[in-house]
């Protein structure tokens, strides 16, 4: 199957601009010509309904690697619970290390999924349609990976319920509601659960299609239960569309609030390098930037492997590259603003922090950060680069690394020089820090592989609306 897909699309990923089909407005079509309701349904459901013994070898190999990394996570967490957070590299003054770096990195990655599914839906961007399902799944799995860090960095994760309001025998049922860390608990848990139901509501009609297509009795029952007996009644669609648009409307401020609140974790503190009002917009732009990079990292191999070039076209790739350019430029602008304000504040500590960031012991981290997030996205001004898929894949990896470095620079480099030189220290991640981080990547990839195998990775019902058969007479123009 993998080889067949290769043969069918030997050139996928190696388009140059002459070969890309364009419509009469000179735009690359969102969905390639020649598809109808049946062919789209077949194309997407075939990936899921392949018999187990015919699972593509590439999938098995990929899942095996991800599963091994997932076991690294299990070992790292097991040893962490056994020994405590002392196995990490954290110390005084650097009390926040990889745990918070990775938490912010993962939660930021999740934001692209919500942006694609909610904000682009409200702006009626048709091109979001064939990538939203996948991006939403990515959001959920990124949030699942992010959640591990705050949960386990408490040291005693079995007391994590103390973070929620609850009645207990001590009578102390209230957490401190004036703390950004507590806001984080509410923001991230709301974000995770609302993203989950948004994703599930979108899946219902496609689960019904799987139920009706599978020949396997057991799968029919499973998908039938999951689809809740969806029949596609006009009355049902009417309410369904209402709630789908409302969820998009609710998710839009929600996603902006989440990274704003994550940035409050820092901005409310008095540490130079954290205490800054630019943080909320800067963090939100960075989140979307890293999320789109991750969507590209995952989607480029996926569309090539499963031969989904017709549904995830160069239009999608090009648009995502443009968003990467815009948000990357915003992030770079924020870096420059930080430098300016460190100087303009006339605060000795702020200016020292900035000089230390650039020339101190971690100068190479800052230099790499500027290379990854400042310089690299600027290449996306050129159409030739935006449409060179392998190169774009490499750029997306560089951006992922850059965004991880950004959080490292903000958290570790700001903390390691305390106000008193007697309290200065250095920080490096230990093998347990790294194994936990790599382990969450394993968990994320394993979940992505399972998702690709058992659920439709493209929203079939929404893609149908972009087909000629979906353009019904007297139809209001709508695409949800």
């Amino acid at each position: 199957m993998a080889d067949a897909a290769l043969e069918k699309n030997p050139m996928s990923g190696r388009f140059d601009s002459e070969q890309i089909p364009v419509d009469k407005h000179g735009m690359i079509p969102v969905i390639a010509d020649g598809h109808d309701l049946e062919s789209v349904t077949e194309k997407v459901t075939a990936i899921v309904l392949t018999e187990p013994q015919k699972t593509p070898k590439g999938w098995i190999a990929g899942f095996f690697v991800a599963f091994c990394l997932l076991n690294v996570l299990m070992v790292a967490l097991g040893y962490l619970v056994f020994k405590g957070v002392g196995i990490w590299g954290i110390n005084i003054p650097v009390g926040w290390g990889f745990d918070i770096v990775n938490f912010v990195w993962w939660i930021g990655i999740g934001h692209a999924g919500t942006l694609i599914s909610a904000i682009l839906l409200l702006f009626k961007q048709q091109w979001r349609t064939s990538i939203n399902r996948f991006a939403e799944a990515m959001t959920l799995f990124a949030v699942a990976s992010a959640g591990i860090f705050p949960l386990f960095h408490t040291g005693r994760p079995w007391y994590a319920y103390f973070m929620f309001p609850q009645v207990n025998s001590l009578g102390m049922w209230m957490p401190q509601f004036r703390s950004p860390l507590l806001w984080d608990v509410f923001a991230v848990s709301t974000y995770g659960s609302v993203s989950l139901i948004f994703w599930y509501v979108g899946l219902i009609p496609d689960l019904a299609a799987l139920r009706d297509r599978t020949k396997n009795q057991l799968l029919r029952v499973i998908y039938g239960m999951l689809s809740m007996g969806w029949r596609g009644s006009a009355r049902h669609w009417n309410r369904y569309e209402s709630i789908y648009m409302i969820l998009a409307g609710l998710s839009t401020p929600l996603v902006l609030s989440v990274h704003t609140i994550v940035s409050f974790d820092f901005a409310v503190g008095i540490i130079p390098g954290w205490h800054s009002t630019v943080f909320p917009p800067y963090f939100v732009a960075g989140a979307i930037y890293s999320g789109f990079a991750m969507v590209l990292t995952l989607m480029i191999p996926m569309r090539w492997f499963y031969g989904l070039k017709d549904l995830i076209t160069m239009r999608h790739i090009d648009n995502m590259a443009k968003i990467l350019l815009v948000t990357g430029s915003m992030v770079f602008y924020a870096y420059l603003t930080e430098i300016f304000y460190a100087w303009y504040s006339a605060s000795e500590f702020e200016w020292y922090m900035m000089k230390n960031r650039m020339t101190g012991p971690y100068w190479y981290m800052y230099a790499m950060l500027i290379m990854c997030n400042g310089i690299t996205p600027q290449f996306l001004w050129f159409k030739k680069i935006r449409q060179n898929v392998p190169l774009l894949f490499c750029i997306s990896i560089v951006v992922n690394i850059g965004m991880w470095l950004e959080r490292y620079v903000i958290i570790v480099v700001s903390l390691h020089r305390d106000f008193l030189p007697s309290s200065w220290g250095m920080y490096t991640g230990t093998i347990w820090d790294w194994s936990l981080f790599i382990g969450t990547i394993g968990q994320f990839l394993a979940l992505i592989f399972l998702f690709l195998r058992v659920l439709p990775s493209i929203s079939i019902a929404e893609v149908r609306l972009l087909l000629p058969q979906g353009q019904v007479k007297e139809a209001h123009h709508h695409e949800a």
Partner: protein
Amino acid sequence: MKHEEAPQLFGLLAEFDSADDLTNATKAVYDAGYRKIDAYTPFPCEPVMEAMHVHHNWVPLIVLVMGIIGGSTGFAMQYWGSVIHYPWNIGNRPFYSWPAFIPVTFELTVLFAAFSGVIGMLLLNGLPQPYHPLFNVEQFERASQDGFFLAVEATDPKFDHAETKKFLESLHPKEVFDVEP
């Protein structure tokens, strides 16, 4: 005649070639006075909803009301906890520090609104519903893929098996099925 036949059938189901044909047929059936009708499409299709005169639904109101309830609950919880039940005097700062309560209030507004909207949508739609008579028609499995169907239920006062079937057949369907209950 009518009374003997009605309990044995859920109704009649007609399949159409395209959403356009379904829209026209739905309009005709509605204009003929049938009200216990429903159209089934593989994607949301507004002209069909209009032909059935389905416009308004209660989902947005549920979301609004539950959002307001969620927000007030969130704020009241924080007020009660921080001001009345367990006030902590930290450097004589005010107990009622409402700006600090806004983030949690907002999150709970969204949480309540989103969950009750989805649950409300499902309950109003009568879902989950594992069994439905229409699933007895083998062809109906196309409704989730590329089929366009119109059902007229036997409980409609105007329903008469022979007459309704003749009427549906005059609307150029691909086929008309009897639906077992």
